[in-house]
């Protein structure tokens, strides 16, 4: 179920409208207006989304847009700092008083809960609620969440969740109402970051409705759910029990937040560009579409309302290394040389959508080592070099490959860009469009994925520890829900991943991951083409807007408010 995290970035991006973001200069200019004005308390904030909220249940939320919305509704032990740029990647205490106290060589983590944190019915959030919230994520009925509890908690591999196993998970201890202790089966240096995931949000046992909890999670944050119509609208109203004094992250300014779902991308852009009536108090959930970029940048008043944010997301063309002739590294390198990254970026909105990627780890990620192993003029590809490599591999007469893309306008545009750029090197690409709702389940099945695929990844928190080990460990190739979609299997890389994980110290681990990324790039199991930035339109009466790195550069909803 790990693909979800990428799905977040991707469903939005590949899918419905091209993700876009701003160049540094535009970014500096545009954060000015919406960021500087002081938001006031009160009013109704509108959020216009082109996609559905996949899962509101904290146990199942593994899509960034849902996590962004979830932060308004529930609190987690730690969370991301509410700040623009790389400062937003910092983990800060939320329900807990600190970011966790490791003992026993980072095998035991202790958190103390803050005083005065309350659920929407006024009762205090206790350590039992946190324990129960984590235990639910083991239930087979709620499968979509991150895998870390199952992977890391002692006994997590056999525990079946609270519905089947009433005794609970012994490795989560609650010595008193305010203390929760996690016992891990291995040293995890960044467990304090992992508990920022929604799966570590408190859930009161008597309010748990199982699968139905998805429609009505119980609030511990500034807002509670008033009405939720899936695929249409989510209305949030104030949680009267939430005390701003206990929360350093959420501002909780608007009285009401209305999130419209599944809107047409062109309609969202148009409504925010005109910014009339209610739409003056609205923001877009997804980045501006390529078709509106020209209008937004051409008008200085609109440009001010375009808020940009960096992300830690990398988009790449995946190559199935088990399919012939892609098992030959020279063929994969030829594809890496042939790909026109600039054309791919243009399908997503041009330079505003981010920087051309030259390697796996984006520069916004700690430990990233800059390199460009497959260089070309302006990232437009080097067909001559690609042809030479193909000839060397014995494919001078050309190749035929099949590319999996989501069946959306953006997916098709990217597929055509891949098709046109590889054709220059004599590689004929057939586009296989897959319904966007089935896209990740299809490419996550080695039996059903084809030769090439449009893919990408956002680590769960800044650092490569939830990136390289998940995507490139050959032992993690599974029959369904596979994340190693290149089916890359290198014993040398596997051994190195184990060494880095065992080392413990986060800083040396980050540097080691940077070096390992270079090693993986030599084998070209994927061809990175874009490091995303997001440019999001906000209404003229909205203040406090900035793009957050943890949400693929999209707006941090907890800081938004109205000017008047």
């Amino acid at each position, binding site marked *: 179920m790990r693909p979800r995290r990428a799905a977040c970035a991707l469903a939005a991006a590949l899918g419905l409208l091209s993700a*876009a973001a701003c160049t540094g200069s535009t970014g500096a200019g545009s954060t000015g207006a919406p960021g500087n004005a002081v938001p006031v308390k009160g009013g109704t904030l509108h959020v216009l989304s082109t996609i559905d909220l996949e899962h509101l249940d904290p146990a199942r939320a593994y899509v960034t847009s849902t996590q962004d919305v979830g932060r308004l509704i529930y609190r987690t032990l730690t969370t991301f700092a509410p700040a623009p740029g790389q400062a937003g990647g910092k983990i800060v205490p939320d329900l807990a008083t600190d970011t966790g106290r490791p003992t026993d060589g980072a095998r035991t983590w202790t958190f103390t809960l803050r005083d005065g944190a309350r659920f929407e019915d006024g009762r205090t959030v206790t350590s039992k609620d946190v324990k129960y919230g984590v235990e639910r994520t083991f239930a087979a009925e709620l499968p979509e969440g991150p895998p870390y509890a199952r992977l890391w908690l002692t006994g997590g591999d056999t525990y079946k969740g609270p519905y089947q196993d009433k005794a609970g998970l012994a490795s989560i201890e609650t010595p008193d109402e305010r203390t929760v202790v996690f016992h891990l089966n291995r040293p995890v240096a960044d467990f304090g970051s992992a508990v920022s995931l929604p799966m570590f949000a408190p859930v009161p046992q008597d309010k748990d409705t199982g699968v139905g909890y998805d429609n009505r999670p119980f609030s511990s944050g500034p807002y509670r759910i008033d009405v939720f119509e899936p695929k249409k609208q989510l209305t949030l109203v104030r949680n009267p029990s939430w005390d701003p004094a206990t929360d350093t992250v959420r501002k909780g300014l608007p009285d009401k937040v209305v999130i419209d779902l599944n809107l047409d*991308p*062109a309609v969202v*852009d*148009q409504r925010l560009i005109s910014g009339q009536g209610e739409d003056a108090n609205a923001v877009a959930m997804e980045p501006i*579409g*390529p*078709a*509106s*970029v*020209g*209008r937004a*940048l*051409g008008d200085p008043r609109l440009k001010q309302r375009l808020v940009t944010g960096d992300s830690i997301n990398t988009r790449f063309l995946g190559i199935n290394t088990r399919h012939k002739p892609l098992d030959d590294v020279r063929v994969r390198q030829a594809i890496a040389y042939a790909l*026109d990254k*600039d*054309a791919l*970026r*243009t*399908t997503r*909105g*041009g*330079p*505003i959508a981010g920087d051309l990627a030259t390697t796996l780890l984006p520069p916004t990620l700690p430990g990233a080592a800059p390199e460009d192993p497959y260089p070309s003029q302006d990232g*437009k590809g080097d067909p001559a070099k690609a042809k030479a490599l193909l000839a060397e591999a014995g494919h001078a007469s050309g190749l035929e490959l099949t590319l999996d893309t989501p*069946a959306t*306008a953006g997916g*098709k*545009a990217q*597929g*055509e*860009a891949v*098709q*046109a*750029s590889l*054709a220059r090197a004599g590689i004929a690409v057939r*586009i*296989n*469009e897959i*319904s966007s709702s089935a896209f990740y389940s299809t490419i996550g099945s080695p039996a059903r994925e084809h030769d090439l695929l449009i893919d990408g990844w956002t680590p769960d928190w800044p650092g490569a520890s939830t990136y390289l080990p998940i995507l490139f460990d050959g032992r993690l190739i599974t029959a369904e829900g596979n994340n190693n979609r290149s089916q890359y299997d290198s014993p040398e890389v596997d051994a190195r991943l184990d060494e880095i994980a065992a080392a413990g110290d986060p800083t040396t681990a980050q540097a080691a991951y940077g070096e390992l990324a270079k090693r993986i790039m030599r084998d070209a199991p994927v061809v990175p083409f874009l490091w995303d930035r997001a440019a999001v339109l906000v209404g003229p009466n909205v203040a406090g807007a900035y793009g957050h790195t943890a949400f693929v550069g999209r707006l941090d909803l907890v800081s938004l408010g109205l000017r008047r």
Partner: protein
Amino acid sequence: MSARAAATTDTGSRTAGTAQVTVLRRLLSQRGTALALAAVALLVLVALAAPLITWLTGGSPTAFHGEAVDPALGGLPRGTAGGVSAEHWLGVEPVNGRDVLARVVYGARVSLLIAVLATAVSTLLGTALGLLAGFLGGWADTLIGRLMDLLMSFPSLIFMIALISAAPGADRRLLLIMVLGLFGWPYIGRIVRGQAMVLARGEFVAAARVLGASRRTLLLREVLPNLTGPVLVVATMSIPACIATEAGLSFLGVGVQPPTPSWGQMIASAVPWYASDPAYFLIPGVLLFVTVLAFNVLGDAVRDALDPRSKPR
């Protein structure tokens, strides 16, 4: 006996010959119809000469021209009216810079090919089955009639989308022709059946039957030739309907596969650009409009010309 039958047909075809000349003269005598005919002829010519046209202009329908668009503005074409220039006479597509002229002329090929062949399929099926139902009556009529009712009452667009999505590997053009043809034939079949029922009771058919003509001879030599008028009219009207449906299916993403150009796909991808690059939206839109209008005017005129009762006012 057969000599007698043959003689009838001879006179029949002779009168048909003179009728054709009159029909053509009637068609051309009206300015609107003449224009429509010219538009259709031009369209067919353009579609046939697509490779020649792109050879002349130097564009290819699938080649990207990154230099013709401005990535900093989200891939908006450089220059006026969607990037009109000496190389790109009708401008380029936003984002990828493909030549619009090359894409519309190749798109015309796809649209016309699918529409004409789908119409051929539905006309053949409709005439054959309608003729059988109308002429034979009884259980054949019941069976074919219910089949027509079933197909006509079906939400065909939804079924087409489902059918096309269910066969991901198949050649989309062939699939579209078959699907459009299979859902289109009852409309022709109904008309043919009604006409065939009237004709089967006609005196000349009775005469031929009395003279001992076989059922097959009656069907093919007596009834069928008298059906050409209505069939021709319905077929002409069905071509624009097929073009529009094909464009609609392409618009919904179940048409021909990329990078094959088609007007429907161009319109679909132009929708978000309506404000920033209106030319991209207008060109395939206007072409589709003119084509469908021309075929409709022509179909109307053919009906007027063939049916003396609805003589032009």
